[in-house]
């Protein structure tokens, strides 16, 4: 009889613990997901979504082709002031880091070829510039402010997201951080 009771008590304990744990886990998970939600699709540490865009010279750039090397992925617009200021620094660092395995890829958001070309000429930009005509890459990365820069490491993961203008020194530091070892 008392053995029977002990069994029952253990079963009750188990069932109650299980129910409370499952409920608590579901609730805590929901709260954490909601509170930490940044509205971002891609966050630091995630794999950078692959994409394929064509540059001004007709070369197709596929992000995953750069696996094993770093990619300095910069989203920009010709009308955006900070973009204009940081682009010359990017150009300088591009020349220095291209052979060290860090590539610059500048994604313009849906502007006209003419405008992008004249901008590149004005600032003497030689790194590849691609235009995201349909916004599909912008949506895949959920870009809001311009400029936004994603540092993609050799492993294809997003190392850092920068949502503001960068100085030359910062760009150098960022590029060093994604240099293949």
């Amino acid at each position, binding site marked *: 009889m008392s053995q029977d009771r002990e069994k029952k008590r253990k079963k*009750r304990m188990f069932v109650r613990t299980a129910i409370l744990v499952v409920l608590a886990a579901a609730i805590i998970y929901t709260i954490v997901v909601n509170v930490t*939600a940044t509205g971002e699709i891609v966050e630091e540490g995630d794999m950078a979504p692959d994409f394929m865009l064509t540059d001004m010279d007709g070369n197709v750039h596929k992000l995953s082709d750069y696996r094993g090397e770093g990619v300095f992925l910069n989203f920009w617009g010709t009308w955006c002031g900070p973009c204009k200021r940081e682009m010359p620094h990017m150009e300088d660092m591009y020349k220095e880091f291209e052979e060290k395995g860090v590539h610059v890829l500048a994604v313009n958001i849906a502007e006209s070829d*003419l405008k992008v070309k004249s901008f590149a000429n004005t600032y003497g930009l030689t790194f590849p510039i691609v235009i995201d005509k349909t916004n599909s*890459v912008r949506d895949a990365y959920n870009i809001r402010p311009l400029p936004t820069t994603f540092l993609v490491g050799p492993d294809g993961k997003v190392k850092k997201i920068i949502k503001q203008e960068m100085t030359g020194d910062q760009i150098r530091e960022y590029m060093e951080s994604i240099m293949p070892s």
Partner: protein
Amino acid sequence: MSSIKCECGHVNPEGTDICQNCGRPLSKEEKEKRLADMRYDGAAIRSMTHKRSIVDKVWNFFSSVKIGVSIIIAILVAAAIGTFLPQVFYVPAANEAQAAQYYEEHYGTFGKIYNALGLSDLYGSWWFMALIGLLGISLVVVSLDRGIPLYKSLKNQRVARHPSFMKRQRLFGEGEVSDPDAAMAKAKQKLMESRYRIREEDGAILAEKGRWSRWGPYVNHVGLIIFLLGVMLRALPGFYVDESMWIREGETLAVKGAPGLFVENKGFSYEVYNKENTDEVFGEAIDRVGTVASKYQTDVALYEQPEDALPGSTEKEFVKDYSIVVNKPLKYEGYSIFQMDFKLDELKSMTFALQNKKDEKSKGELTINLANPEKEYDLGNGSKVQVLDYYPDFNGFEDGEPQSATPVPNNPAFLFKMFTPEKPEGETSFVAIRQTLEPLGENQYRMAFQSAETRNVSGLTIRKDKTLPIIALGGLIFLIGVAQGSYFNHRRFWIRKADDGRLLVAGHTNKNWVALKRELDKATEFAGLPAYHDQRDPEEEIEDHTEGESKA
């Protein structure tokens, strides 16, 4: 854990009020009551019986209806306070810092505290979600703790109950009857006509109907829990999308929030009711406000990328054409694309003539697509115009450089180089609306504005909600539970012969005693059962006693 052994020999779990076998009162409180407490048929509420471990303590906390009601009140109060100031999504702020500044500037210290406590984003604040979660736990625990013992008690109930049980029912009668067996047979017949299920045992009858209505509150709770589960799923990726986008006529853009889908805007139309095309219906309104919109429509073509295509790839397949109007969204793969907003008459193209300034003779015209200007326009006969640079939204000069505020052609300006047979080396001219500069000296030719074409911009909203079927199911089950518990009653009669040959009759229902009495009246009259009386206290008469599940 101890148990209670009844006089009849049945062993009941601790906390039982009424013996689950014969119906004798067991607890001290129950014995003192004039009428039996039939709320859970006298079964022990589980949590009340074990108070040992921390798990049991937590369990007991949530098992309390008082706690459940307190949580509901807390939620209601929080939701009410959440309406004091505008929620954060109605506030012009792009980020948290701006929102905090807005609340402090507009509503002072109260606003600052309001925002800091998360009341400005109530449904997004962790403590509000926690309250909802606690309510969920309370619903589960309360239901299990009461529903299971009630179910067991009703399932195992015996037919013959002890006279002390019957005497303590609200409807009770006893008396001599000339032929008890015949009376019971007739009563049984009559009650069967009223669709009672009859069980017989040792000269006792239990007539019962509508037991399932007792499960109403629990069905109701299951519905609520499914509802909450649906709401919870919204937070997970892939379940819920609510985005919006602008698309100009002629553009093909990725559908925001729906990777792999593209829409092409083939034309936006905006129609109004006016005096000519409308009968009297809108007459007054048109007189008052001028125009009344009759239609907003975007004609679109939908495209989809192949499964393995990457963002940015131009590969896509035509899916269908559709005209999106208000309340008739384009539906595809769980997404609904709604007509939401519009902007009329954005500049699309501008036409210029290459003109000699003196005699205004033209060398020809060119039309510039403002979304995609050509580099060079050849006018023939040795004349051509190059577009050196383009400023879609010209807003002045900075260090001598023309600037564009946005990429939208609100105020287009161009840097032209004009080549003519007279000036084969070219003349440079900066042309903005109502402004022409000749930075490199006096020109012979100019670009004379001729005309402009416009296009409309359509605002679309993209929605997907996979949780809706779950939420709807929860709501439906909730309503079924409400109906089950409200419109149906659980009615029981006990009839038995006492040792001295007299007949005992008792009746119970969880609600609607009038109907119960009517049915007992019919049986009493037909079978000649002893007269019964209602044992409820006269002062209780006023409130219609129904058995909820408020046993804290």
